[in-house]
């Protein structure tokens, strides 16, 4: 199997994630889409590492995972506290920080 399929899958996952972030309102879903994009990138990193025969990309993927894990903690905490105060998980409802 040629590595390009992995890249194609990565691109597909990234696009689905990106579209999801743009069109969905539910914060949890948006959050999952972000995770999807991150993992799509992880996939492509690993793939490129495989193509080039180096370990850099794989190491990078671990970093991304760590960061993503930390981000989930912070992000879910924010979503939780917003939901507690506003009784809603829609990202369009939290638009106070503007001009």
């Amino acid at each position, binding site marked *: 199997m040629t590595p390009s399929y992995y890249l194609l899958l990565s691109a597909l996952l990234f696009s689905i994630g*990106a579209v999801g*972030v*743009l*069109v969905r*309102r539910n914060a949890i879903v*948006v959050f999952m889409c972000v995770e999807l994009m991150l993992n799509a990138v992880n996939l492509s990193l690993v793939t490129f590492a495989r193509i080039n025969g180096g370990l850099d990309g794989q190491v990078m993927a671990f970093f991304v995972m760590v960061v993503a894990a930390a981000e989930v903690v912070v992000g879910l905490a924010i979503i939780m506290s917003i939901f507690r105060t506003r009784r809603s998980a829609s*990202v*369009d409802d*939290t*638009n*106070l*920080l*503007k*001009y």
Partner: protein
Amino acid sequence: MTASSWLLVALPALGALILLLAGKRAKAWGHLLGTATVVLAFVYAVILFFSTAGNATENVNLYSWIPAGQLQVDFGLRIDALSLTFVLLITGVGMLIHFYSIGYMADDEGRYRFFAYLNLFVASMLILVLGNSFVTLYLGWEGVGLASYLLIGWYQNRPSAATAAKKAFLMNRVGDVGLALAIFLMFKYTGSTGYTQVFDGLTNGQIPPAAITAIAILLLLGACGKSGQFPLQAWLPDAMEGPTPVSALIHAATMVTAGVYLVARSNVIFSATPDGRLVVTLVGAVTLLIGCIVGCAYDDIKKVLAYSTVSQIGYMMLAVGLGPGIYALGIMHLVAHGFFKAGLFLGAGSVMHGMNDEVDMRKFGGLAKKMPITFVTFGLGYLALIGFPFLAGYYTKDAIIEAAFGQEGWRGWVFGLAGIIGAGLTAFYMTRLMMMTFFGKSRWKEIKSSDGRDFHPHESKPIMWIPMAILAIGSVGSGAFFAIGDRFENWLAPTVGAYHEAEHAPISAAAIPWLTLALALIGALLAVWIFRPGRDIPVERPQRVSWVVRAARNDLYGNALNETLVARPGTWLARALVYVDNRGVDGAVNGLAAALGGGSGRLRRLQTGFVRSYALSMLGGTFLLLAALLLVRFS
């Protein structure tokens, strides 16, 4: 003796300083201290006069005043015949007027301050005449301007006095710019501002002829400002807002003659430029006629005397403009004029003192009996002024008229005739003044003064009339004393050049005195006839008068001209520029700020607060960036 001549200046300056610092504490003794310093200065001047015997020209450099590389201005004094003449005049007349002021200002609660200003004036005036460089002269020049400003504005709560003071200072400043520019020119060509160096530079040919003429005319501008000469004469009559002793000392005897001093002092420069001299004589001739004409129309006793001063200084200017050999005549008339005009002003002050400070001659009349001493001293000054035989003016003024006739060609006729017509007019307006004030009906009996009191004319105290009497003696004797045997001319010869008589007289020199006398007599008799005792003089000023009188009452429209040419456009320009600065220059700056602010106001609308729109713009941005990178990569 000359080495300690700085004491002359220091004494009155110290008096002024102490009085100003002591303030109200000096109320009891301020006038005594002020007078004492001037008396001491006068005594010192007399000693100096006898010890130098007039022949020495000595420069006393006191200290380095403005050392700036090439330009070294020393604070120095120059003791010579010319400066000593002025020192004696200033301290002498100044001393008498200090005494007079003790009485005149007795009721003023700020008398100590008045004496401080008088002392300041005497000190500045002494610096003016004693300084040995044009910069020291300039120091005194503006110093007397300041003293004059303070004293004209003495009654500062009167808007007219405040305005008159400001006007005097401003018109003087215009002249001062001329003096300053002349000094700049001298420095440019000779690298110095000292009298000796500048005059040496001139004789060595360091200054090109055109520059000499320019310097002369610029100096003349300065002289016109200070001496109330055409076209800067308008401030002097207004200066009569000051107390009368001030008018006598500053605006008659000393400060206003500084212009004549300047020309005489710079005689080396003026001798080298006939064109410059011609302008001086023209200014003198025009001014003397203007002064006479306006003097005939005023009813305010002090303003008549003020215009008389303008006109007499015109004579002096005419004399010093006539050139080498005749400078001394101008100074001689100046000194004699210092006596009789100071006496006249003090007399006028005495009249005002007895008449509730009234100055309108129409409200006077018949005062000779009420104020006999004032009448006699004033009368002697009057006779001296109109050139009554063997009194001061007869010798000094006639000499100038003779010298004027002595000029070549048309100049002799023009200046001679101006002088002789002036003499006639002088006799007219002065006789009119005498008739209206001292003779005729006592018009003051039927009216009250402006503050509602009755008039009770009375003779002044001895402290006031004794100075008047001394000045009257000077008016009688000074002319003969100076003129007989050319004493005065010989005394001044070392500093202003030897005197020589005019040669080109178009009419016989012997006839001129007779002619002058005849014209003066006609003028005087005319005035006597018009204002004869039996005739009614209306207390209110008649309004239906000929255009000549109306023009003269309006100072020949000099003030109107200043108003329309300078004052009103100036105010208008200031207002317009304030508008331009606020709306134009500052408006541009504020406009830029507003444009930036407005622009960012529009831009910030992009911050909608919707997370998803931010995400979209981030995505779009990433695509754009990628596209750009790829384009660069593949093109």
